[in-house]
């Protein structure tokens, strides 16, 4: 059965373009221009994945509200924010509401589809028992490539998809400096320097929530970042 993707986006052209791209990939797509219609539909039947814009018609923060309500309906449903707003504050708010990823509309369709696929893969992986071979262990860190989950000292660190990919790229070759471009490629995003910096900051903070002394991500000034064990 085809997986259903809900696109909540008030700009009709964008909605239709995304819908076309997802349909080409073999997904069933349903588009909604505002929160009201989306919630009405979600109440009847949940999609398998939701792509939400933040500002929806007359509600500048409607996407956030929708995300909260959707999370209330289903804690596991993958939710991606896709928005023209790129401020750090919005990203933090979106991720705090339980979104799996926060993307700006600069992102190419290919990258978007890669993410959607990855998220579906994760949903599938989470339904199966964990496979040991997919798990990378680096000291206190264990990283499950399939489930896209990270544990530090046995405790789960909740990362967004982008964050997970950055950590994944850093830990693949510990000690090697990954520059910004490499990290962006790994995370399937195009980001400016400041956004990368914010991502790194957020990653550090999330690890520090489970371990105050966490200091494995080093900045190499002018070059990039590296994972130090």
């Amino acid at each position, binding site marked *: 059965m085809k997986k259903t993707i809900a696109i909540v986006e008030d*700009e009709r*052209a*964008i909605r239709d*373009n*995304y819908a*076309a*791209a997802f349909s*080409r990939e073999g997904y069933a797509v349903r588009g909604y221009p505002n929160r009201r219609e989306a919630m009405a539909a979600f109440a009847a039947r949940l999609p398998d994945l939701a792509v939400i814009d933040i500002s929806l018609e007359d509600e500048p923060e409607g996407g956030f509200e929708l995300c909260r309500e959707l999370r209330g309906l289903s804690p596991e449903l993958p939710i991606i924010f896709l928005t*023209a*707003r*790129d*401020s*750090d*504050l919005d990203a933090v708010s979106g991720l705090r509401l339980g979104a799996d990823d926060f993307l*700006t*509309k*600069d992102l*190419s*369709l*290919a990258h978007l589809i890669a993410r959607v696929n990855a998220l579906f893969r994760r949903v599938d992986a989470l339904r199966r028992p964990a496979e040991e071979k997919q798990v990378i262990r680096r000291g206190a860190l264990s990283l499950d490539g399939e489930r896209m989950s990270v544990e530090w000292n046995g405790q789960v660190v909740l990362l967004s998809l982008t964050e997970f990919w950055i950590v994944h790229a850093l830990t693949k070759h510990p000690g090697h400096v990954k520059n910004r471009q490499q990290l962006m490629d790994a995370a399937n995003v195009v980001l*400016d*320097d*400041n*956004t990368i*910096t*914010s991502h790194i900051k957020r990653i550090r903070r999330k690890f520090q929530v489970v371990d105050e002394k966490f200091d494995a991500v080093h*900045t*190499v*000034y*002018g*070059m990039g970042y590296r994972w130090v064990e």
Partner: protein
Amino acid sequence: MGRFLELLKAGPISGLKLRTKLLLLALTTLALPWAGCQYAREMETVLRESEQQSLLAVTTTIAGSLKGRQELLFRADSLPAIDGNNARDITPVVLSGAPLIDGRSDEWDTNERNVVRVAGPGGDGMRLLAATHERWLYLALLVRDQKLVFDAYQMAPLDSNTIGDRIWLAFDDKRGGQQRLFFGGASPGPVPARRIETREYGREEAVEEPRIEAVWQRAKEGYVVEIGIPLSLVGQHIGVLIDDRDRRGAARQSYGTLDVADLRATGRLIAASPDLNDHLRQFAQPGVELTVASSSGATLTRLDAPALPGDYTKMRGFLPRMYRLFLDGGAIPRSVSQPERERSAQSLTSKAARGHAETALFAGRYENSVIVAAAAPIFSADGKQVLGVIQLAQTADRWLTLRDRALTRLLNLTLIVTLFAVGAAFWFAGRMTLRITRLGTASENALGREGSLSRVLPESDARDELGELSRSFSSLLGRLDEYTGYLRTLAGKLAHEIRTPLTIIRSSLENLESEAQGSSGMPESAHIYISRAREGSERLGAILTAMGAATKVEEAIAQSERQRFDLAALVRTAVGAYGAAFPQRQFVCRAPDEPVEIIGAPELIVQLLDKLIDNAVDFSADGATITVVLGDDSAFAELSVANPGPPLPSEGAEKLFESLWQSRPETDKRPHFGLGLYIVRLIAEFHGGTAHAANLPDDTGAIFSVRLAH
């Protein structure tokens, strides 16, 4: 008026500070003392005039009491027929004390009008002074004589051949007879008076007259003879004659008030009645001098009341002296010499003698003392003739004292008021200046370098015009703030707004591309167009990112956490990385070996360095060497990036660090919004530092430096 305003605008006052202007304004209160002086002078004039009028009234009253009373005015024996004045008339002054008959006339206080002058031959001459005291008539002859020869009276006294100076005295006796006497002394000292007695057959004999005393004394250029005669002897006429006989046989030279031929007295004796003083005494007031003169102006009597002691006490001290200095300018006559004073009194008397009551003001005996005098004629019973003149004089000390006291009080008061006004103006001006300065500084600071405006200005709750000014400044700044805020967010908003259509374009292109891959329905050239369109949209995306960069950095700054880190290590690492990133350039890094620790955000410093390096790379040619230097002193760490290349634009290096300002060659195709150096400044300021740009020596390039606080 217009010109005046223009003068005010462009005149000397316009260049002055507000404080000075207000001070000058306050100084105009100094006109108050001036006005006070004017007022005091007015007051003085009024007082003086009223004084003069009251004195005149008193004088007229006394004159009225004497009207027609000749017997009270003049001695009964010498009631003058009022038929004009005779130069030979002798008017004795009533003296308060008997003069000593000693040949010195200095104790005689006489009026010039009372002096009878007779000129003699060859520069000789005589002056005759007369006075009475009680029942005596005193005469003083001041004779100028080239050669004094004492009379050898022991010889035949009436021998016309005898030599020596001789004085003749002749008068009517009360019976109508003529008395002739002569004085001739053999030596200075008392000389006997000798009367000519006519015996039988007309023989004349000199008989000593013991009732008449005389003293002969030498004097400068001549001699003085003082004579005392009992008044009871003398009738209506009296006269003297000088008989100057210098050597034997010489012609006798005679001159005087007697008829030379028969030695008859032709001049009258106009003496005051003994009752006159008693009559006048009832009008006497302390401090008032009362003088009665004959119609010729000669003093008959003078009632000299003692002056009031200490009436005019000058205020002592510096201020009263200063006040007087600019008060007594001309209004009050200065002290003058005695003769001048007498002339003033004389002229007043003469005016009165012509029948008009007069009043005058003249300087007194002492410095700054003023005499008020009034004179009134004494008319005969029919009112047609002037019998004499009465004159009252008193010092004006009373109203001078009054004036001084009033003035001192007034001036002290105005001085205090002026000082207070000046002080108040100064304080007010100071406060005003302070407030304006504060407002000025605040409104200058309101537009801070960051461009964010502080809208709270001082004085905004004041109710006066400054408050209004402050409020309108506030609202102006508020509007400016909104506008600036709008401008600052414009780039970001624009980027955001453009992003949506750009997304439409890009996603459409991507869809087109994806679908074209599957089908072969599209010509080859379509792929080229699609890829061109993609390139274009990517460039547009880059532009949008660049436009939002400053906002991003501001956000990053707002969320940055400060930490202590080694700047030297950071710079060395970063510059090492730039060598790889820009292979076309050489990089030289000079940083201290020991750590340069600052507190800040290292990732922001890296970004700052990125911008400086980008800038240096953009403005230098391939193969150029970019020098990064880190200096360190106690207050700041200074990081500078120098590159060879074109010099900075001349508009001012500071402008380079402003938002949306750039100077790049037109040929540069990459998107630039003049935000790079603005970001450098933002980051430098976040680190408590500053950013500067300068040309290298010889204009071979530019150097950009930032100072960062430790």
